[in-house]
């Protein structure tokens, strides 16, 4: 905290090359990490009461659930990565009419529960005599539900990184495509990968949509083991094995990228200049960015249009109460999740001890477990200690969405050259100063995006809320599911639309400050530089 005097007085003279480990930070990481891993440990305990892992089978369908899950992960990853990167680039770096609105709208698909989308699609299909189901549809529905992660993370990265490089591209007459493929994309690749990883984890934990669409996946096999066959330890063991597979996948992806790391030396000194799009390019950009939000909003609306008579009158007071509960829970959970994720991400960067690195990486894994199984872990913790259900629920949210918040923060820090930290330390900045004066300002954009994603995810979260909430404490998502699972779609639709509205409100509150983030601060340097080129 203490500023060094302008002279040559180091706080730790002689230790410059390696600053001491910031142990309060290490302690905080340990605390957050252990809290995050506690439910997984409780699950491990349950699994150990069952048969040996060697006895694990996936049932008579053999490897089909595994193959289906992998196909889904691959399909959703490719589709989400492609559309997400494309829309992230278009909304962050190109100029066309309606861009700001369309940027906000990219969040809509994330705010639409995928089981509801699947349910409405199946229902619409079955009225017109068409069967909707199978892997293809599952990829489409889940891809739509998860591509927003890639859009938001990549568009943030596109606006943050490489603005100057792009000006160089322009001066060298490299066109928009060249600048996208050769400069912007490689720089934003970690963010794209983080978004795809979140999508993949969500695919692994999804149960509702794939079940409705008739695709037997690992999560379905896990739940059948528990609820159909009554083999709880076996189910939990299978969930933990899945978790290890996901962890390996994520780890190998990170290793693969390690060789091609690109660093930026701090904040770019230029505002991102937008590529103006004209003519058919403009139309195409509008079409591509409009299609996914239109689908996720349009399918339920088409359903409502064709079934106007089935929309039951819902007491407004009830909806307001549901909405307020959802809002309060989501705000609380988002704040806590951001703090926890910051501690982990910054701790990972500043504390080199192996244990801390491992904790920081492992803490987000809860996201890859089916929510129903994770809820069980929390019931084990809470039941024994008599914890208040609400406390348990918020803890659950933070645990589940830690990965979502951490994804953006980690990639942003990953893109910051280590030399920046070293420079700061050599100038006598202790770790608190480094965090406060360099890292936090740089993480503003990623924090906004993380907050938005966690908020929307919490509002629509179902399995934990369903299993852990206290008496008389329904939320919007709970109500949607209760009706939808009872095949009363009309009644499910109204609370689902309120979820979308909450998502849009959050997006319109946070996204504009993402847009203004750079120009505000860097108008002058940019003017100076443009004279250079």
């Amino acid at each position, binding site marked *: 905290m203490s500023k060094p005097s302008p002279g040559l007085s180091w706080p730790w003279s002689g230790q410059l090359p390696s600053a001491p480990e910031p142990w309060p930070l290490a302690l905080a990481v340990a605390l957050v990490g252990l809290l995050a891993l506690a439910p997984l440990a409780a699950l491990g305990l349950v699994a150990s009461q069952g048969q040996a892992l060697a006895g694990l089978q996936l*049932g*008579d*369908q053999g490897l089909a659930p595994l193959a289906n899950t992998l196909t889904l992960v691959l399909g959703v990853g490719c589709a989400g990565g492609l559309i997400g990167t494309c829309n992230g680039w278009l909304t962050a770096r190109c100029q066309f009419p309606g861009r700001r609105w369309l940027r906000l709208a990219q969040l809509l698909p994330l705010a639409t529960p995928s089981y509801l989308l699947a349910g409405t699609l*199946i*229902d619409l*299909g*079955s*009225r017109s*005599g068409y*069967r909707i*189901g*199978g892997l293809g549809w599952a990829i489409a529905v889940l891809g739509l539900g998860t591509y927003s992660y890639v859009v938001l993370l990549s568009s943030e990265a596109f606006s943050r990184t490489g603005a100057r490089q792009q000006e160089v591209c322009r001066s060298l007459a490299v066109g928009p495509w060249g600048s996208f493929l050769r400069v912007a994309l490689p720089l934003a690749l970690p963010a794209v990968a983080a978004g795809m990883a979140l999508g993949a984890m969500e695919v692994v934990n999804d149960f509702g949509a794939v*079940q*409705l*669409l*008739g695709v*037997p996946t690992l999560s*379905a096999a896990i739940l*059948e083991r*528990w*609820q*159909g*066959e*009554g083999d*709880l330890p076996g189910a939990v063991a299978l969930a933990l094995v899945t978790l290890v597979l996901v962890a390996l996948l994520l780890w190998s992806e990170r290793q693969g990228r390690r060789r091609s790391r690109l660093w930026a030396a701090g904040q770019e000194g230029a505002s991102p200049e937008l590529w103006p799009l004209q003519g058919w390019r403009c139309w195409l950009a509008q079409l591509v960015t409009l299609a996914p939000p239109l689908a996720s909003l349009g399918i339920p609306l088409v359903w409502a249009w064709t*079934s106007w*008579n*089935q929309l039951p009158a819902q007491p407004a007071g009830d909806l307001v109460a549901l909405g307020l509960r959802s809002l309060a829970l989501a705000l609380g959970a988002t704040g806590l999740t951001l703090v926890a994720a910051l501690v982990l991400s910054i701790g990972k960067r500043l504390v080199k001890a192996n244990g801390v690195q491992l904790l920081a990486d492992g803490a987000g894994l809860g996201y890859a477990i089916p929510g*129903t199984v994770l*809820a*069980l872990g929390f*019931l*084990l913790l*809470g*039941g*024994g200690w*008599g914890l208040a259900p609400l406390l348990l629920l918020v803890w659950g949210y933070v645990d589940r969405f830690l990965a979502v918040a951490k994804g953006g923060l980690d990639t942003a820090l990953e893109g910051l050259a280590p030399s920046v930290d070293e420079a700061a330390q050599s100038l006598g900045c202790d770790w608190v100063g480094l965090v406060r004066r360099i890292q936090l300002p740089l993480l503003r954009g990623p924090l906004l995006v993380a907050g938005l994603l966690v908020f929307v995810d919490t509002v629509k979260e179902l399995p934990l809320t*369903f*299993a*852990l*909430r*206290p*008496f*008389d*404490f*329904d939320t919007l998502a*709970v109500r949607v599911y*209760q*009706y939808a*699972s*009872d*095949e*009363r779609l*009309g*009644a499910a639709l109204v609370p689902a639309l309120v979820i979308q509205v909450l998502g849009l409100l959050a997006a319109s509150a946070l996204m504009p400050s993402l847009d203004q983030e750079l120009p505000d601060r860097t108008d002058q340097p940019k003017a100076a530089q443009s004279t250079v080129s």
Partner: protein
Amino acid sequence: MGHAEETSIGVYSGRHYNSDQKLYKQFSAKTGIQVKLLEAKDDSLIERLRQEGKNTPADVLVLVDAARLERAASLDLLQPARSAALLRTVPLSLRDSKGRWVGLTRRVRVVLVNPALVKAAPIRTYGDLANPALKGKLCLRDRKSVYNQSLVASQILIRGDAQASRWVKGMTSNVTQPYFSSDIPLIRALGSGQCGVGLVNTYYLARLLNGESGPADRALARKLQVVFPKPAHVNISGAGITRYAKNPQAALKLIEFLASPVGGKGYAEANHEYPLKGYGDDAILKGMGRFQADGLSAEQLGSRNRDAVKLMEANGWL
């Protein structure tokens, strides 16, 4: 606080029909006992109750499906209730022999036929669905449906393992279309002629016949013919007092109210279900005709649920 505790009870319910709440309000008005409600998935509720142990705030557990009630009882989550009223109102086959739970409503899994494609007359029992003549015409919901699981459990009890296996195998080889994940799309597929015959719960059909999903669905449902197999498989929703209920007397009062003709009627009519005895006042249900129940107790069904799932899995029921 102590005062409030005396006059309120906690209910964990696996039923989620908003209309149930009206009934709880009615109960509160009548007795002065407040009902705190938590609706969630049956299996999660069982697990929650198990983990909460003595700390549980729940006094009453309401579950859908016989097997789940039986599971809750076998995990020692419910306590026996002594009640002359319950003995009177709940038939023997619809309650636990040790008094730990009682049934509250009944639903029947029936054969639904599109008469334009399949003749209903030759179908008399569930066994007839294995007839190779129905190949390509039979449509089924997947095996995750507890209603299908309980149906198979009933056939294991009636026919024995070997014959039940042959039956399931015969049926699954008649199925050429992907399995459905819910009942209503299956009923629509029957109505539109994609399928000729299927298995559904009575209340889903009743909802469509009642026009709850629009006139098109009503018209389509009217084309279909209900066949009550002889004997018919009856499943229940039911309730019991939790092992560590803070207020077991008040809990018993609620269960007695729900099982009484007045309360039971409300619970059943909310979702087009049959009351514990007779056919109720629901005109649509009455229009479907009468059935002869197989008389198997929910307790027996529950005890064979796990075997049923394994048998379905082994014989190709996806």
